[in-house]
């Protein structure tokens, strides 16, 4: 039962993580829609939530099967013994990878990286290893699982306790009591952390690294202008390179037709918050420079170097009427830390791709 819950949590975490990975490294065959606008906010919130909830589930699972850790391997060597050794090895891979994955994932939400390997690449690769060893574990246990499902309700009462799990004499816990306690633990850590993605629960998010409504203009920041080495000069201009090349000063941009979008900033670290953005529709800018329908767009920041100094907008995002080159946030001019003078804001995108301090737009095709 706890294994099943953990399986569900790990699956949700894996699939939402895969979605986030594909948002940032989109393979050619995949078209990510720009709607629903809050999709990424929900999936990434779920990613971090399912990871945190997996902590008590993993500990509970390890706890219930603890005696198996000390079970003797079959002797003398035989095919069966070899199978048992391989099974134990696959479980070692599963447990070590999952425990480390949850640990580094949680620390990443604090933006703390005390380990000697790159976070993003390791987190992604370990995810495949976890799902692989989980599938292998399921394959090994399949006969037990199907036997359990084929049992009729009459077979199930009273529930026979498998000989290799902890007896009630040590735990003092009934099966049902254990499930209740573990479900409560999952709910507790979930409620104490979900507030970083659901601002109404923000005040009680005591286990979350982010607090809603904190920061310039009431919105948190991941990368400040100082960290990015940004200094905006008075003669700042936006250049658009398309079929015709355009250049605008900030005042000229303000004079163009302005639109409003209510869109969330949804970060890969799981926190998110809705905000009101005002600026010029990217779609309108594309039209002004004579870009054909279905154009891709490269958005270039004043930030020099680094993975997030530029981002690409696929056609469906560039054409979405919600996608703006934003000049204002929550009723006032953008704060420097939020990307002054102009930043990109598009629906259903991770925060790292909402490029700040934009100074050039390049039509790609």
């Amino acid at each position: 039962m706890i294994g099943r819950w953990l399986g569900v949590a790990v699956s949700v975490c894996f699939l939402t993580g895969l979605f986030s990975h594909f948002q940032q490294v989109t393979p050619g065959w995949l078209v990510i829609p720009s709607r629903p606008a809050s999709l990424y906010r929900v999936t990434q919130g779920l990613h971090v939530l399912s990871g945190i909830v997996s902590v008590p589930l993993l500990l509970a699972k390890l706890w219930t099967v603890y005696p198996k850790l000390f079970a003797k391997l079959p002797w003398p060597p035989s095919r069966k013994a070899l199978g048992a050794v391989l099974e134990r090895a696959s479980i070692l891979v599963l447990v070590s990878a999952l425990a480390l994955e949850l640990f580094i994932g949680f620390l990443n939400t604090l933006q703390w990286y005390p380990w000697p390997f790159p976070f993003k690449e390791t987190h992604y690769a370990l995810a495949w290893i976890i799902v692989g060893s989980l599938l292998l574990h399921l394959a090994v246990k399949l006969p037990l699982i199907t036997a359990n499902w084929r049992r009729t309700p009459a077979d199930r009462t009273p529930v026979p306790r498998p000989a290799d799990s902890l007896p009630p004499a040590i735990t003092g816990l009934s099966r049902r009591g254990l499930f209740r306690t573990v479900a409560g633990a999952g709910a507790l850590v979930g409620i104490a952390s979900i507030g970083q993605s659901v601002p109404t629960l923000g005040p009680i998010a005591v286990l979350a690294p982010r607090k809603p409504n904190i920061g310039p203009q009431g919105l948190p920041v991941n990368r400040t202008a100082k960290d990015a080495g940004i200094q905006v000069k008075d003669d700042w201009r936006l250049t658009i390179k398309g079929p015709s090349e355009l250049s605008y000063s900030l005042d000229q941009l303000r004079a163009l037709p302005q639109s409003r979008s209510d869109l969330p900033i949804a970060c890969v670290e799981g926190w998110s918050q809705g905000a009101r953005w005002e600026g010029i529709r990217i779609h309108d800018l594309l039209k002004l420079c004579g870009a054909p329908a279905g154009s891709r767009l490269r958005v270039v920041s004043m930030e020099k170097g680094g993975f997030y100094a530029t981002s690409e907008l696929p056609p469906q995002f560039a054409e979405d009427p919600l996608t703006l080159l934003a000049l204002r946030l929550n009723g006032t001019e953008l704060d420097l830390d939020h990307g002054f003078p102009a930043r990109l804001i598009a629906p259903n995108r991770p925060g790292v791709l909402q490029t700040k301090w934009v100074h050039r737009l390049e039509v790609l095709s």
Partner: protein
Amino acid sequence: MIRKGLGALGIGFGLWGLRLLLQALSLDALIRLPLWLGGAVLVDDFLLIPLTLAAGWLLTNWSTRPDHHRTVTTIRTTLLYCGLTTLIAIPLLIRQGKGVNPTVLSRDYLRDWLLLEATIVAVGVLVTVLQRRRLTFSRSRASSGDIGGR
């Protein structure tokens, strides 16, 4: 058939993950990663789980004394929830005030952690008191001959 398919898919995914690691990590990182993986298992299997088992064993022993078994479930759950929330709070407490910018880790985590533990303990105590009161009530009814109208 399904079993073999699942197993093959699992091995395939695992090898794909391994390939990604070999591609993305430097030799130095590849040597150190297994140490961290081993460390994760050691912390789980030889620290956290034995700690829980020891606490559970002590509690179960204590609960064999007269009347203690009635509150043991609540005490165990309270201890467990305090331990778990503390485990998750440890990194937040260590990094308190060290966020990369003022909007990261902006809470007073020491205060919040103490409040959270106090709340869990308070709920635990409340449940215990209610249980005892219900128990005393049903006992007094039983001793007075009133056993629910039967």
